[in-house]
């Protein structure tokens, strides 16, 4: 089914029909000058690739956005409480809501950071929640929480700015919510948790897949963009080397590198992009890291299953947003279901990310299916299985000027400071070819802007 056939898109399409294809080319040319890249590191080779995009947006009604906003706020609030708990008293394990081996056997749980308090009790400062709209029943379903280093904000943001320039008529005729305050919100969130000093965005450098975004956000928020070499720890505090050869105390870091690369003393000694001993300053409470260390346990594919239970446990509320129907191979009943229904399920390896380790049972040969079954029986904790969700297609404008439908998901972003702000936009990703369900940018997909409409008066 095709989302962009809904009446919500009528106003957009009537404007689109008046547009000369020449101007679409103009937009493409503009986008090229912005150098919107998604860099890949594959087979030891660095590939700098344009991130393909499409000018037909996903359109979200005001009512639908309000629903998503409430659902994501609830989810993030619960996930933040979970992280506070799991790195503290661990009540949720003691009360048997989550089997403790799910946490303790996961590589994403970092016991060396237990009992490390964080500024203002916020751990999930920036999140990206991946959702799809189920064409059966029309409901939104959460596929994945990204609570470590989610990327993607800058792509719809820069596409929006250019679209406004090239096609102002859309913005005159449609009541589209503005999105340009994201960087300022980010800055405010950094100020909120800052422990004294300046704000810094820490980037792995220009070879990172999202370097474009790091520099964009730094420029727009007025924050210093730094690499690991620019920062250092003196005594128990973090400083920035300034161009004048002086040092400036740093109080909050929006770090765009993984835990593993963050500190070569504490984590991977081979990391050249981190800041040595920064984790000691963090343990001493002298630096706010956004996001906190060890968040990976909350967006672990195995823990995902328990998020609805977390919402009920910590908040005493019913979850607003649903998970995709999920089976944990760890539980015997679920495991039997998985083994018997392998053909109709999507199997995910909890240790992998970015669309890697995702297998559709229906696409496997008999031998591959047997091999997977053996792997599941051998290491049940490693696998989860989900029902295939028939999510909506959205049309894309082809080079020939025709419309072609592609599967599309939605990543929505939140910023946690004194409240949880849900950005009225989002990264809509679509699959590279018409038959595929995998929309990850590292798997060749493209992106669209997401237009949230204002309340109609």
């Amino acid at each position, binding site marked *: 089914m095709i989302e962009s056939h809904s009446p919500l898109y009528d106003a957009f399409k009537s404007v689109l029909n008046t547009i000369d294809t020449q101007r679409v080319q103009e937009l493409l040319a503009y986008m090229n000058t912005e150098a919107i890249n998604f860099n890949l590191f594959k087979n030891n080779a660095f590939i700098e690739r344009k991130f393909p995009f499409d000018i037909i947006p996903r359109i979200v009604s005001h009512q639908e956005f309000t629903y998503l906003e409430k659902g994501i706020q609830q989810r993030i609030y619960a996930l933040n409480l979970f992280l506070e708990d799991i790195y503290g008293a661990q009540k949720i394990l003691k009360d048997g809501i989550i089997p403790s081996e799910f946490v303790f056997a996961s590589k994403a749980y970092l016991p060396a950071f237990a009992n490390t308090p964080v500024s203002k009790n916020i751990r999930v400062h920036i999140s990206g929640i991946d959702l799809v709209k189920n064409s059966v029943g029309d409901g939104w379903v959460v596929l994945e929480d990204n609570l470590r280093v989610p990327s993607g904000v800058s792509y719809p943001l820069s596409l929006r700015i250019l679209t406004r320039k090239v096609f102002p008529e859309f913005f005159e005729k449609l009541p589209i919510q503005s999105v340009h305050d994201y960087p300022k919100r980010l800055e405010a969130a950094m100020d909120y948790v800052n422990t004294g000093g300046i704000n810094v965005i820490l980037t792995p450098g220009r070879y990172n897949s999202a370097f474009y975004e790091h520099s964009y956000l730094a420029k727009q928020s007025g924050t210093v963009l730094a690499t690991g070499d620019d920062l250092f720890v003196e005594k128990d505090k973090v400083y920035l080397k300034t161009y004048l050869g002086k040092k400036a105390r740093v109080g909050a870091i929006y770090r765009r590198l993984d835990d593993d690369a963050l500190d070569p003393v504490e984590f991977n000694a081979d990391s050249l992009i981190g800041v040595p001993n920064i984790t*000691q300053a963090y*343990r001493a409470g002298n630096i706010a890291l956004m996001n906190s260390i060890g968040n990976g346990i909350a967006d672990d594919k195995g823990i995902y299953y328990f998020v609805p239970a977390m919402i009920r446990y910590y908040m005493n509320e019913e979850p607003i947003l649903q998970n995709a129907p999920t089976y944990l191979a760890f539980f015997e009943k679920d495991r039997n279901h998985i083994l018997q229904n392998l053909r109709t399920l999507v199997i995910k390896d909890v240790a992998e990310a970015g669309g890697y380790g995702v297998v559709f049972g229906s696409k496997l040969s008999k031998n591959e299916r047997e091999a997977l079954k053996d792997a599941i029986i051998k290491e049940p904790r490693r696998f989860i299985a989900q029902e295939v969700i028939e999510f909506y297609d959205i049309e894309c404008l082809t080079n020939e000027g025709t419309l072609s439908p592609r599967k599309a998901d939605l990543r929505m972003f939140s910023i946690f400071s004194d409240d949880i702000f849900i950005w009225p936009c989002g990264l809509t990703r679509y699959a590279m070819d018409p038959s595929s369900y995998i929309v990850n940018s590292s798997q060749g997909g493209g992106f669209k802007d997401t237009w949230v409409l204002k309340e109609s008066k």
Partner: protein
Amino acid sequence: MKVNFSYDFTLTFPESVRDHRYCLRIVPYENAIQTCSNLDIRVNTNAAFEQGTDGFANRFVYGTIAKPHKSLSAHIEGELELLPYVYCDEEPPALYNAPSPLVSFCALMQAFLDETTLPVSAFRKAFMLTQKIRDSFTLIESTKAEGLESFLLYKEGLRNDFSHLLIALLRHVNIPARLCHGFIEGENKTHTWVEAWMDGDWRGFDPIKGIVIHDEPYVKLAHGRDFSDCAIYKGSYIGKRQHILKITGQIGREEQQ
């Protein structure tokens, strides 16, 4: 029992290094059976350093030596009050019953287990495995083949291998177990042993000596799921990556007054 201790840790580099950030887990642990007093810590005689605690409540010192240097030395001395080795703490035992970065169960271990019939009680199981490991393996001071698989294959290995194997076997029979790193009497270097959780307490087992630890002075510096959580030295520096860590010192029993 009261003991005094004095240890020196010396890290030497064949070529000089600079911008050296270090973290040393060399401060004795504090728990129900081990309390510390009159602690004196020095790094490079009088260099500045900071102190911190990690999630296992291991204490460490950290700091920076920016100028080019060929060695880093730390000295620590003090007094300890030690009680018999049976105690509990706040950490969840289940944390130590899951596979950890350096310890997971493998087929060779199953074969090792199959050689004997294990007793029923957790304590007897642990004691039997402790002795069986001592009797089956030879302690060596350096090895080219690292890891538990080669330990089981060649029947010889480092201190860590003894402890890691015991931990893997205990976890396999559902007894939570963790690695301890520290000092023992009469040895001029660090030692590792195992704490196993049974009947609501942690008890000490030494698979190198094949004993249950009770009154012997075992001074714990750090513990963790395995050795990756309690290495003495972690650091980052600019220079050729090659260093030698030498540890010397002693524990002495204080006269009862």
